[in-house]
Structure formats: C-alpha cells, structure tokens
C-alpha cells in the first residue's frame, strides 16, 4: 500500500476516534460512538498490516498474540463487576503504558525497521520522541499499578509519605531530563535502560502519597499520561492516528482531573503533592466534644419516607462498597408506587472515579434522566421532604460553606441540610476521608441510621 494512502487511512481512523468521544455527549448517541471507535481501530490495524506487507511466518504469530490478548481482554470485560470499574481502568492504563515502553525499546534496538536510522546513529528528533514516549509510558505503568493495588485494597489506601519526598521526586525528574540529554549525545543503550528504570521509580513515588478518596484525580491523571505516551510514540513512528489519539486522550484525562479537582476545591498540585490526611490531621482532633445524635431504625425511616412527597437520594462510595445499588433501586420502586417523587443527586467526586455512581445506578436499571449533577439539583433540596444519604459523607458537609478554618472550606457540597429531614445511612459516626466531623450528623432534622447500607435499604423496603 502506498505511503500516502495509508497516511490518509490513519487520518480517517483518527477522525473516527474523535467521533467516538463526540458520541458520549449523550447516552443516546454513545453506543454509535463506541462503534465508530471500533471501526477506527479495525482500520488502523488493517492498514498497518497492509503497509508492512510482510505476510511471512511472523504474521501468523502476530495474529496468534492478538487473539491471546483479545480473548483475555474480552474475558475480563464480560466478567468484571461494575463496582470494580476503577480498578479495571487503572489496570488497563498500566497496560497502555507498558506497551508504549515496549514499542520504544523495540524501536531503539532496531531503528531500521521504523526508518529511524541505524543503532548507535538514530535521528536526533526520533531519539528525543522515543525517550519521552518511553519515560511517560513507564511512569504511567508503575503509577497505574500502584493506583490499581490501592483501589483493589491490596495496598492500604492511606497516603504513604516520608521526609524529603518532594525533593526526592524533583531530583528524579531532573535526572530524567539530564539522562535524556546525555542519551541524545551518546546514543548509549545503557542510558536508555537507566532512563526507563528511573521513570518506573518516579511513577511509583508519585502515586504512593495520594490517598484513597483522591483516586478520581489520580485515575484521570494517569489516563492523560497514557495519552501523552501514545502521542510520543506516534511522533517516533510518524503515525497520525497515534498522534491524534494521543492528543485526544491526553486532553481528555487532563480535563477530567481538572473537573475532579474543582469538585474538591483543591488545586491539582495540592492533590498530587499528598493527601488531606497528611497535612490537616490536626484539625480533626479539635472539636471532639460529644454532641447529641438522633438515631433511628428502618421503621422510622420508612415512616418518614412514606409521608414525604419528594425524596432525593445522595449516593457515595459507601454504596459501592456495600453493593447496595440494586437494593436501593428496589426501595425507590416501592416509593414510586406510593406516588413519591424520587431523584438522585450525584456529587462530581462521589466514588472512586469520574462518573462511578452513574454507572452503578445505570447497572441497577435506574433511568439516567432521574439522575442529576450537583448544579442541576442543588436548589431542589430546599423543597424536598427527605434526603436519603447512602454512603456519602464529606460531600454533604455544610462546614464547607460556613467554616473558613475547615480543610474542605469552599468545596462545592450538596445542600442536603436544607431538606425537611435527612436520613443518613452510615455504619458509625467516624469522619470521612477529609478527617473532619460532619455537622450534618448533629442537626435537629437528621436521623442517623447506623447499619450496613444494603441491609438498611432492604429493611426500609420491607417496612414501607
């Protein structure tokens, strides 16, 4: 196939990828968008086969390895429970990162296959692009592995910090730049391996100080990195499909991290340089005087809801942990039968990744037009009779609006306290991720329901 024709077809597949993302602007067009993405991928792979034009025994092996990887991927995709989506995405990011590293290594060992020169005399620009692709890929890989281990619970979600951490990271980053410069002047393969090693190390060090509830930012950030790594390799291979895709994914991840940071009213650097937990713990211990709390059981909750005319449900990560989404929908069905209006309010950072709660509710057959974002629904709390908070905590804390001393001051929160009554399903009074007490627990109109989210929801349904 001529080089011009394949370049045009790569461009077509890049455009199809843009349309795939464009489709996600509404759930109706999203499935079609996904189809565009698949077509784009098929085109890109086919064109590559045709332009390499080498249908020797190696070609058979390529198909075999493709089939092996494909079946593993398909198997995972069908088996994974929706609650494990954050882990899955983190795991997949690590694969993209590692694939980028492998492609860069291969190009370094055998540059002639990619038209980049000969070993020991690789074109300067290609070498720089290769080094960037490999370094960013390696950071994506080790960072995503840590994120995966933290989300999976294999590694503690608590931030791991040590003295001189930032200095150490900064020095390593400078080292990467120096190594790249030396690599370009000497073309030494040892330097290339050291560069990759240091990049693995820094990816690991960047993610360990970040705590569990900041995971939405981390996952989005790694999403962005995997895109930049792909773009770096795209420049090396002079491939437009890769460059376009890399840029799309890179900016997509960056926007998502920005949205997540805004949802917590924290700067990107504040999140990256280590959690709330590490720096603000002192404020947590101060207001520990015992305040009265009203607690109730499923019976009381059912009574309150039965007499309400509108109920707003506020789900959070606790709902995902307790796998309570199906029980919740059953409760809502019962409420609807009694002509009670029900809607769902989702905070941008609820859960462990962007849109986590929406997927879980969709899984439980909740129609998406009953689910609202913070800005859409926040004014409705004042007119609602009951707010049902299930597994959320910090995102409902009114302190964010009233107390400038609080570490979460200024963070957008759901105005749950404006409801006539608040039902708060929680296992204990322990503070949330930010390490601060939730004023909502002690409000006149709050009824605490101390139980496992799933069990409590089922009990309420029985009592309705």
């Amino acid at each position: 196939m001529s080089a011009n024709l394949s370049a045009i077809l790569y461009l077509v597949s890049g455009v199809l990828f843009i349309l795939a993302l464009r489709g996600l602007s509404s759930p109706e067009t999203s499935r079609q968008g996904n189809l565009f993405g698949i077509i784009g991928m098929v085109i890109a792979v086919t064109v590559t086969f045709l332009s390499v034009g080498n249908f020797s025994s190696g070609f058979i092996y390529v198909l075999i390895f493709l089939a092996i990887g494909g079946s593993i991927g398909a198997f995972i995709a069908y088996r994974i429970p929706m609650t494990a989506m954050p882990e899955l995405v983190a795991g997949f990011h690590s694969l993209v990162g590692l694939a980028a590293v492998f492609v860069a290594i291969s190009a370094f060992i055998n540059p002639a296959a990619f038209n980049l020169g000969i070993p020991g005399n690789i074109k300067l620009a290609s070498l720089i692009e290769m080094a960037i692709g490999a370094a960013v890929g390696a950071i994506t890989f080790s960072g995503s592995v840590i994120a995966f281990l933290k989300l999976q619970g294999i590694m503690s979600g608590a931030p791991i910090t040590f003295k001189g951490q930032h200095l150490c990271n900064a020095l390593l980053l400078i080292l990467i730049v120096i190594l790249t410069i030396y690599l370009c002047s000497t073309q030494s393969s040892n330097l290339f391996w050291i560069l990759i090693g240091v990049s693995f190390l820094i990816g690991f060090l960047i993610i360990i100080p970040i705590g569990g509830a900041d995971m939405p930012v981390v996952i989005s950030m790694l999403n962005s990195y995997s895109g930049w790594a792909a773009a770096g390799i795209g420049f090396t291979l002079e491939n437009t499909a890769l460059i376009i895709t890399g840029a799309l994914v890179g900016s997509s991840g960056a926007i998502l991290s920005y949205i997540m940071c805004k949802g917590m009213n924290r700067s990107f650097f504040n999140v990256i340089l280590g959690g709330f937990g590490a720096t603000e713990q002192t404020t947590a211990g101060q207001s520990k005087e015992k305040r009265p709390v009203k607690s109730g059981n499923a019976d009381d909750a059912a009574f309150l809801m039965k007499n309400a005319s509108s109920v707003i449900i506020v789900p959070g990560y606790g709902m995902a942990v307790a796998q309570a989404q199906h029980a919740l929908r059953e409760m809502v069905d019962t409420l609807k039968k009694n002509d009670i209006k029900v809607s769902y309010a989702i905070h941008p950072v609820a859960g462990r990744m962007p849109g986590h709660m929406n997927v879980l509710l969709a899984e439980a057959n909740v129609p998406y037009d009953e689910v609202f974002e913070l800005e859409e629904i926040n004014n409705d709390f004042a007119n609602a009779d009951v707010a049902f908070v299930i597994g959320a905590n910090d995102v409902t804390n009114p302190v964010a609006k009233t107390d400038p001393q609080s570490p979460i001051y200024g963070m957008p929160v759901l105005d749950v306290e404006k409801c006539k009554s608040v039902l708060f399903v929680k296992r204990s009074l322990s503070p949330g991720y930010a390490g601060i007490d939730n004023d909502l627990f002690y409000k006149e109109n709050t009824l605490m329901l101390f139980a496992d989210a799933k069990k409590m929801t089922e009990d309420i349904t029985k009592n309705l």
Partner: protein
Amino acid sequence: MEIDPFIFRLSIFILSIFVGYYVVWSVTPSLHTPLMSVTNAISSVIIVGAIIAALSGSDGVVFSSSSIYGFLAIILAAVNIFGGFLVTQRMLAMYKKKKKDK
C-alpha cells in the same frame, strides 16, 4: 526552504489537543466512566507500533531481540482494545431512559 515534516505532525498534534478539549467538555458527566474506558481503548492504537516492531525480524527469524518486545506489546494492547471497547459497550447498554408509559 522546505518545511520539515515534523512541523506538520506537530500541527496535527496541537490541533487535536484543541479538538479533544472541546469534544471532551461536551461529554455529559454521567458518561465520564465510559469516557475513561473508551479513551483507554483508543489509546491502544499504539498496537500499530507494536505490529511494525513485531514484523521487523529479518527473513526466517521471527523472534529477534527487538521483535519480542513488539509481540509483548501486541498482547498488552490487544487486552486493552478488546477489554476497553467491550466493557464500554457493556456499560453504555445499561444507560436507559425512563419508560414512556410511566
């Protein structure tokens, strides 16, 4: 003087960042999780590089030191492509509207 082809690629790159910026802002927040899984799937187009690397071995030698990395990258990227698109499909199939008859 002729323009270096690198400049063309850089232009494509910069413009794609802008396209990505506007397209992603128009994605509805409730679809942010599928957005992540689909971006993950499409970034596996890196498989293009993996295939070139895997087929770089000279005649008769399928597995050379450089093509092995290519084959490994093919497995990783294939897991991602199939896994990413299928899991996105599965998620998107769950997003349903309220039934009209209610």
